[in-house]
């Protein structure tokens, strides 16, 4: 199993998945992300079962446009200490994703056929958001198990 770690985040990758760490704010869609105004961002991790382009934005711009039906993109975004303890991040521990969490309108950029889900949580005193994009809304029941297997491999210290 392939493992990757940085900034206190370690991930055991599901076969066929790849990961890219980057600092928030260094990408074209960083402005949108920061408009949440809940604190500064820190680590951003992109996880995908397709080839991640070299210059994808914090929330997947540049990657979502080339997604095909079976493709999945998971974005783990850390928010600043100011976010810890706020109602938005009240949920403790890494979340599970359910098929009902996905909605074609829950996307940073709405693309035909795709669907998104987003959850916020706190782990080890650090505030995170997880944003999942499906290449096909119709495949959400099939892909959810794979996404949760991937999330189970994430450890945050």
């Amino acid at each position: 199993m392939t493992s990757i770690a940085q900034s206190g985040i370690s991930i055991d990758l599901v076969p066929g998945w790849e990961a890219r760490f980057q600092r928030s704010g260094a990408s074209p869609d960083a402005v949108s992300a920061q408009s949440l105004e809940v604190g500064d961002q820190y680590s951003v991790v992109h996880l995908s079962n397709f080839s991640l382009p070299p210059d994808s934005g914090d929330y997947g711009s540049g990657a979502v446009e080339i997604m095909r039906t079976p493709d999945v993109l998971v974005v783990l975004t850390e928010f600043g200490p100011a976010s810890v303890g706020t109602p938005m991040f009240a949920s403790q521990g890494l979340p599970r994703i359910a098929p009902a969490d996905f909605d074609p309108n829950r996307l940073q950029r709405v693309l035909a056929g795709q669907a998104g889900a987003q959850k916020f949580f706190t782990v080890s005193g650090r505030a995170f958001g997880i944003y999942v994009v499906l290449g096909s809304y119709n495949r959400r029941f099939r892909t959810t198990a794979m996404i949760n297997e991937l999330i189970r491999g994430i450890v945050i210290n």
Partner: protein
Amino acid sequence: MVAVVVALVFIVGILALLVAGLLRSHAEILRALHDLGINLDSSDLTSGTQSQSVSQPRLRPGIPSPRVGEVEPTDIIGVDLSNEALSVAIVGTGRLTLLAFLSSSCLTCRGFWKDLDNDFVAIPGGARPVIVAKGFEAESESALRDLAPRNVTTIMSSAGWSDYEVPVAPYFVLVDGGTDTIIGEGAAATWAQLENLMSQSMADLGLAFDREKQSSSKRTFGRGGADRAARVDQELRAAGLKPGDDRLYQVDQSSGELDQ
């Protein structure tokens, strides 16, 4: 009596010439074997070095030694040009990946850095190209930033070089992520040589046509009109259609429309 003596002298002379010729031929064979790294010297025979030298022929400088055993493909873990952790999936992907092991300092690599920055270059089999450079401990960060193509994933991973037992730069490995096997590898000096090398490997396995049809090139030629044009060109080339091909302009007589 004199005639017999003359005849014997003549025969001995002929035999002496034959022996001299044989000795010379033997010496030339020994010299040729020695040049190939095979030493048949009797003093070495007793020490057992003959078998070693026969199994490991000496190679000219710069030519990588044959690999012992097979390399098992693995994902590549390293960092990107911003020194951020990056893992590139190679196995279990269901697609072809062309790993280009390049260095910023090798002169032969310069052409490949440029070729991979060209959106119109045809990637063998429509594979996803991934450039693997050694880690920053062995590479120049600024040189890599200047050389790295915009649209091709570049990863710094000394472990990747070690995992794939890369003997020399530039070196290329074509991995089939459907069967998790290496289907072609080798060194090349030009892109044309690389295409030929990999095309032969794929043809040997009957992969070329099928894989081109399933091209993952849209990943690499991601966005924009030029990228789309490059993808279309690549798909047409895969179908055997070159620029100016008459079949592109054939008109269906019944409908008056271009043939599909």
